[in-house]
């Protein structure tokens, strides 16, 4: 089994337009949560969001004014992050178009982000909008495939909030099985009336800055992000820098409820154990956890219970959703990149907005920025509606 190497990362979120800008915000403990400036909704000033501070026009300009009139905000965010990742991995056109190069993306809202256009087209209200062929969940994938002339395996995954974690998992397995030499994996989601009203109808959105793992947490903040990683098999990396490794992955279903996790954390624990098994590691070899940590009562209680069950001594953990909000399909890849940053720089970022820790557990999330911490292996968790649970293990290239 060849090692799966990470050779490129790209991300855009509420805390920065590049990976480096986002690492600066993590180090400074600076979140990107606030009322919405660009997202139009009756909730824009009522709830907190993790919005990327760029209009659609500004995003379009930043990705190079591409000749495609039907790029939605989801696609623009995806392209922005994709460009950064493939540039860092130095993938030239021939490599991008090789049948041995794959692309696996993910999105939940996908092309449905322009609610009002979709409403008009779906209800036959007027002449078709320019987005009429762009509503599919996989539209952003197809746009990237076209723009970058990708000819190999392509896929789009939607397992709700664990989508891009499963894109990473599938990419690793394709490399392991020898089906691909390299694969770009990740996802993108933008703020949309569809998801905001959906989560609001479930009454799990907070009017405040979200506070994962705080005793008085009152819900999540929706965010938007695009995040991609370039994975390559060790034997073809050559002298390019290796940023780290994906060494374990596990996927399981909680099989309990469409939009809540079971008290005994069945799915999360199965996924975490499966990932440890693939990595050939014991739980006590995990040095850091990037938690799913949404800030809902249900998730943080269940996930903490899973930590208690899995670890004799729970390693340092945080939820970087306290910086970016919950970026849905993009969260798995975005948080894998933040996890990788901790491993690369041997540092830990504080979990924000925690005032009072959950009294059922004697452990608590990381409180302050710490440099010079020895970190070898880290776990990153993603749990979604439909019971979809995925756990990844990333390892440092020391």
């Amino acid at each position, binding site marked *: 089994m060849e090692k799966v190497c990470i050779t490129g990362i790209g991300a855009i979120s509420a805390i920065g337009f590049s990976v480096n800008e986002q690492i600066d915000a993590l180090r400074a403990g600076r979140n990107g949560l606030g009322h919405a400036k660009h997202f139009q909704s009756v909730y824009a000033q009522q709830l907190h969001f993790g919005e990327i501070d760029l209009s659609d026009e500004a995003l379009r300009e930043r990705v190079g004014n591409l000749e495609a009139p039907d790029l939605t905000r989801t696609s623009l965010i995806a392209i922005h992050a994709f460009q950064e990742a493939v540039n860092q991995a130095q993938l030239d056109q021939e490599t991008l178009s090789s049948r041995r190069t794959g692309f696996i993306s993910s999105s939940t809202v*996908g092309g*449905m982000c322009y609610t009002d256009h979709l409403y008009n087209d779906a*209800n036959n209200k007027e002449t078709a909008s320019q987005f009429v062929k762009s509503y599919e969940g996989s539209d952003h994938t197809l746009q990237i495939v076209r723009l970058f002339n990708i000819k190999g395996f392509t896929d789009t995954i939607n397992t*709700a909030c664990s989508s891009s974690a499963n894109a990473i998992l599938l990419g690793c397995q394709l490399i392991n099985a020898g*089906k691909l030499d390299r694969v770009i994996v990740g996802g993108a989601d933008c703020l949309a009336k569809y998801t905001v009203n959906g989560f609001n109808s479930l009454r799990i959105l907070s009017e405040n800055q979200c506070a994962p793992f705080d005793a008085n947490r009152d819900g999540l903040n929706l965010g938007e992000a695009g995040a991609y990683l370039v994975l390559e098999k060790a034997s073809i990396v050559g002298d390019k820098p290796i940023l780290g490794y994906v060494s374990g992955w596990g996927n399981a*279903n909680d099989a309990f409820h469409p939009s809540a996790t079971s008290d005994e954390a069945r799915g999360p624990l199965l996924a975490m154990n499966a990932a440890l098994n693939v990595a050939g590691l014991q739980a006590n070899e995990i040095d850091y956890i990037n938690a799913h940590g949404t800030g809902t009562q249900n998730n943080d209680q269940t996930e903490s219970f899973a930590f208690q069950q899995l670890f004799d001594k729970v390693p340092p953990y945080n939820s970087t959703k306290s910086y970016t909000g919950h970026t849905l399909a993009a969260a798995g890849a975005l948080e894998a990149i933040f996890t990788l940053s901790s491993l690369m720089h041997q540092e830990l970022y504080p979990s924000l907005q925690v005032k009072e820790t959950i009294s059922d557990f004697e452990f608590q999330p990381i409180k302050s920025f710490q440099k010079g911490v020895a970190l070898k292996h880290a776990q990153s968790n993603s749990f979604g509606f439909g019971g979809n649970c995925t756990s990844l293990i990333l390892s440092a290239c020391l």
Partner: protein
Amino acid sequence: MFVKDLYAISPQSTFNLTFEAGEVLEIVADRYLSHEPNYLEFIPAGQLRRMGKAVRMGIGAGLPLIQRNEPLDGIIIGSANGGLEDCIKFLNQIVDYEEGVLTPTNFVQSTPNALAGQLAILSTNSGYNCTHTNGSLAFENALIDTQLQLSQSADSTAFLVGAVEEISEYNYNIDTHAGRYKGEATSNSSLLSSKTDGTICGEGATTFVLTNNSTDAYAEIVDVTQITCPTKEELTEMIHVFLQENNLNTEDIDTIVLGNNGDGRLDFWYNDVVTPLFPTAQTLHYKQFVGNYRTVSAFGLYFTVQHMRRLIANTSQKRPKNALIYNHFDGVRHGFILVKNSAES
């Protein structure tokens, strides 16, 4: 990997196998709707009422297979759009009620992974669970995922694998705006000979039990591949490489199963690009039975396997030994499934 069991809810009466017995329904319509079984035999009425059509058909095609093949190791679904009816119902609420207080049922049902999640809950299956939404390659992607999961296990392992797509008024409108449909009522018996623009929309749920264990298998899925936005030359090259990788040449393929859908603009991919590569093969078509939809290649696989099992009555076609199933959508995404008759191996 091997096909151990299969089931289809489609515009034909496949759910009770009368389609296979030779009773092909003639449908004259601008869209071909599914013939659905009586779900109340296995879904409680209260739950059934809350299910949108995609979830209902998916549970209806998935649960019987799970129940007669338990225990299964996971659930892998391909669906380009999931529960669109619920999705646009929720969207309409957002717009019509100006983002007021909404009920979450439509939202929760609309996510494409709702089906795989519901199947997991109903069968308490906590194994591997994934939903692929890559447009018209979503089913091929589900098969490739399954192939990977099965290859990692030395033990006998089996997954429920399926595809579902529903016709809703809304996606019918959107795809009509996009120029994909003929618009006028068309008989399915003359669909494939039509030369006008567009096709007729269909729907359905098709499910399989796929396993790495060849015992009592109906057929073997030898390999699956796909390409997006190829030129004709790239597609031809890709087919040759794909066959080579599986130690086959074009003469070994005795049956090509093509996705012709009566769209005068796009059937050349089948007729002019792929058919000439296989001069010795017989051709099977299947969209005259079920219409066109994004994950319809799952029905193509179903139809091929039923042929291999000699279940299709009134056919002059030979029993396929090595079949290549080819489907594309809009001429953009192209998928290939290579199937071998287990009984002949």
